[in-house]
């Protein structure tokens, strides 16, 4: 396999970034098409592994998987080129929109539209929870942890970072104790 140039990596990921609409998962079919089928920078098996891996690493899935693919092609510089490519289209679009949007929000129609849009966002979040639920809440321990954290979050103003840290620690203790008991 010929080593791709950094610019080529940047350009391909820029192109993928433009096509990314509505969440990180969309990147998988795009990577399959551009990186696996066209460019052959990685095999399909590797893509699936990278995807599984980037889900359990903190951060945005599309960004992580871009870093994996870029690193695979040209090590550290390739990873930098890939992440820059993914970021750039979002960055430019949002900057352009941010300027236009603030001018439009004075109109009643736009305000009403955003009233409806805000409800649509809640609906999108609920649908995401439904998807996440089947993948993450699959044991008595997970159920219990979920409800305890939920009540805690609704009743207090605890920081999300603390919640994530605590649940990681609790889970390690719980699983280790369960394993000891089994042995």
């Amino acid at each position, binding site marked *: 396999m010929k080593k791709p140039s950094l610019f080529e990596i940047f350009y391909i990921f820029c192109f993928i*970034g*433009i096509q*990314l*609409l*509505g*969440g*990180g998962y969309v990147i998988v079919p795009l990577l399959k098409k551009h990186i696996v089928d066209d460019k052959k920078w990685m095999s399909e098996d590797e893509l699936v592994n990278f995807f599984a*891996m980037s889900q*359990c*690493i*903190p*951060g*945005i*899935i*599309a*960004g992580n998987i871009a*870093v994996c693919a870029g*690193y*695979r092609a040209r090590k550290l510089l390739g*990873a930098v080129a890939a*992440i820059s490519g*993914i*970021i750039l*289209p979002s*960055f430019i*679009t*949002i*900057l352009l929109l*941010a300027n236009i*949007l603030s001018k439009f929000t004075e109109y009643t129609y736009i305000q*009403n*539209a*955003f009233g*409806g*849009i*805000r*409800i*649509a*966002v*809640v*609906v*999108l*979040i*609920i*649908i*995401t929870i439904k998807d996440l639920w089947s993948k*993450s809440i699959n044991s008595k321990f997970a159920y219990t942890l*979920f409800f305890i*954290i*939920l009540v805690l*979050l609704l009743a207090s103003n605890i*920081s*999300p*970072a603390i*919640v*994530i840290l605590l649940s*990681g620690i609790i*889970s390690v203790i719980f*699983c*280790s104790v369960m394993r000891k008991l089994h042995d």
Partner: protein
Amino acid sequence: MIKLYLLLFYEFFKIGLFTIGGGYASIPFLYFLVTKYNWFTNDELTNMLAISNITPGPIGINMATYTGYTTAGITGAIISTLSIVLAPFIITVLFIKLFNKFQSCIYTDYIFKGLKPAACALLTSIAIKLLYQTITGENFSFIIPSNIDTKDLFIFLALIIPFSFFKKNPLITILTGAILGIIFKPF
């Protein structure tokens, strides 16, 4: 100004570090920023979220750019966008190098058994708080609300019932929300 830049760096670096399971997981962190700083209101944040959903690019990146720009201009946008990817970038590169070691380490598995329900609970609490706020116009409390906005409740039901059956399509959901808002809000 320098203090604001440092704050943006700190907050978005933290969001990148603690966001487990994709861009939507960063949403609870952003709502937490509303209570911590006066950078934007809940409504403004939800508007930003809608924009991030219907523009190209990962939602987390879009949100970082938007938040950074509205609080501290172009420099702010650059700082928050780079900060949100910094921690995951370093961790991903280390992870690739040590992949086999991590995979066989049982504790990694244990940690994620706890993090996934936590991420799910974080998102659920945000959904409940936002829904309560849209429909009653008040901040969330455990008390049953007295004044319910029937228009908003209707729009919510009109969106959630059909869209929970389809594959998630943010663009169509948000456009439908906008149309319902224009039609029903004035009454």
